[in-house]
């Protein structure tokens, strides 16, 4: 009896060492929590995956601060990687443990925001744009300039997200400035003051956006490229536009918290996430652009990520978002609140 018990305890312990339960912290419905992929991952590696979600970058940082050891993989936007590294929240990633690493775009793996302190702290996973989408029925020819947001004919049919930073960045691009180094805040303020009367309502989520667009409330609105590809694949008649003034580019990386206790399994999961096979399947459901060159090449010709984001002329117009200082963030927020309060 005793022997049997000891044997079963041993067996359990051995299984525990091989198969870990890893905890992933991400936005809900953002790639890591697809059922078919997790089932296949568990089958291939024995590790099981549990998810927890955040609804803002600040919440993600707070969760990492307050629950050390609770998470093994976390999605960190490149604009926040340096801050998370500085606070000791995330640790370096070992590229040698990621078999797909060689296929990742060297421009992205070498991105300085993902390599704070000279060491890789986030594996580039996906990237995308925040730009405009228009109702294809009303715009047979897609607009080429951000000035469409200020078109008096479209008054009351324009929408942006209720986010001070993003609003300021769009106004900066419309006034020909660099979003990471805004010099002329007066011009930004004037531009936003003109923009607000154009707006019907602020959109908050992809679901909101789809409903307003389908009901004809929006003619033109800011939108995320990944969401646009999903909306188009669902049959919503919209065109995603990258204006000549530019679009906001963002890069998401997968990081491993410094306090993680399942580092090996975490590396295996990140490897799984940048695998071309996974990405091609995800893309069919609507995904942001991949960091994996092999995966991008494997996409079908008609894929949104291939036709829109795969065009080098488009990518050349994009302004990639750099970390924003606490001070600027506050200035932008105050300006935004002041303008909204005056409505």
């Amino acid at each position, binding site marked *: 009896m005793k022997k049997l018990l000891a044997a079963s305890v041993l067996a359990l312990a051995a299984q525990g060492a091989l198969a870990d339960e890893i905890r992933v912290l991400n936005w809900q419905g953002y790639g890591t929590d697809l059922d078919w992929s997790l089932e296949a991952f568990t089958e291939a590696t024995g590790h099981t995956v549990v998810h927890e979600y955040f*609804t*803002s970058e*600040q*919440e993600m940082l*707070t969760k*990492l*601060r*307050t629950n*050390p050891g609770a998470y093994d993989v976390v999605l960190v936007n490149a604009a926040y990687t340096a801050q998370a590294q500085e*606070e*000791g929240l995330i640790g370096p990633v070992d590229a040698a443990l990621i078999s797909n690493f060689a296929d990742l775009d060297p421009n992205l793996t070498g991105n300085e925001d993902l390599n704070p302190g000279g060491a890789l702290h986030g594996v580039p996973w996906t990237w995308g744009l925040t730009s405009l989408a228009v109702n294809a029925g009303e715009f047979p020819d897609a607009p080429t300039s951000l000035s469409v947001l200020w078109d008096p004919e479209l008054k009351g049919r324009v929408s942006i997200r209720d*986010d001070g930073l993003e609003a300021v960045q769009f106004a900066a691009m419309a006034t020909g400035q660099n979003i990471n180094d805004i010099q002329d805040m007066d011009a930004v303020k004037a531009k936003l003051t003109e923009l*607000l*009367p154009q*707006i*019907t*309502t*602020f959109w908050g989520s992809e679901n909101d956006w789809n409903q307003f667009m389908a*009901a*004809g*409330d929006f003619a033109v609105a800011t939108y995320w490229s990944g969401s646009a590809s999903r909306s188009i694949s669902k049959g919503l008649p919209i065109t995603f536009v990258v204006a000549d003034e530019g679009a906001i580019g963002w890069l998401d990386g997968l990081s491993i918290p410094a306090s993680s206790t399942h580092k090996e399994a975490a590396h295996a999961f990140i490897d799984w996430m940048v695998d071309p096979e996974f990405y091609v399947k995800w893309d069919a459901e609507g995904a942001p652009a991949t960091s994996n060159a092999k995966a991008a090449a494997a996409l079908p010709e008609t894929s949104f990520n291939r036709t829109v984001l795969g065009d080098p002329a488009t990518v050349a117009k994009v302004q990639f978002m750099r970390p924003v200082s606490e001070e600027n963030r506050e200035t932008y*927020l*105050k300006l935004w*609140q*002041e303008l*909204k*309060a*005056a*409505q």
Partner: protein
Amino acid sequence: MSSLSARQDRIRAFTLLSPAYLWLTVAVFLPLSAMVFFSFLSDVPFGDREWHGTLENYQEFFQTSTYATLLWKSLKLGLMVTGISVLIGFPCAYVLAKVIKGRSREALFLLVILPFWSNSLVRIFSWAIVLRGNGVLDFAANAVLPWDVRINLMFSPTAIVIGLVHSYLPYVILTSYLALQAIDDSLIEAARSLGAKRRTILTRLILPLAAPGILAGAVLIFVPVVGSFMEPRLLGGRRGTYYGTVIEDQFVAVFNWPLGAALSFILLAVVLVILGAFSPVLRRART
């Protein structure tokens, strides 16, 4: 003997009341004190974040005109919604209490409380369907009127007022109803037999006697409406920024809990001052 029974009474009262006081401590006093504590901090005290005590969050309110503008906007919204609710609610309550009798009263009463049984988000979204352009209201007006009309009330202050009045109207109906019910019918009959006109009966008899109920309802509406954030956000569109939405932003979007807490307590103070200023009226109404 008598002192013993007095002591027993006190013990009995204490045992009977203690669950209520315990509940108040746990559910009201503790969370509120935590928020008071937060409102004096420089940062959220989670993890290794540096924080120290400060008055900056309260000073922030006075540094820009933004918060004061929004607070004034919210107070005006509160007055408007309360006023409209009383104007609609009091006649409803009067009809319920004095005109209708029997089973139909029960049925009507049920209809009054019915909105309470549905989730407030569901109510707001239903209003969105009604008020939008090409919506139910637009469609109905076009079906009835011979000329072409376009009604799009969505994303306007009107939409916010409609949504809020609908949500809070039952409060004023219920409190007024209770006050009106307590008025003895023979008083009204006596006034009538002495030759008082309908208007005189209303202004000299019914309104003064029902005033406590109306005022209680008005306070019940005014306080939550001033701090409301869901209706303005969903129905107000770009004009939906109010004091409540800014507080919500501090907690949900920018994670500045200390500032959010400070703004909430400034609102609480302003509301208390307003209620304090009206307290002589309230007291007179009671006697």
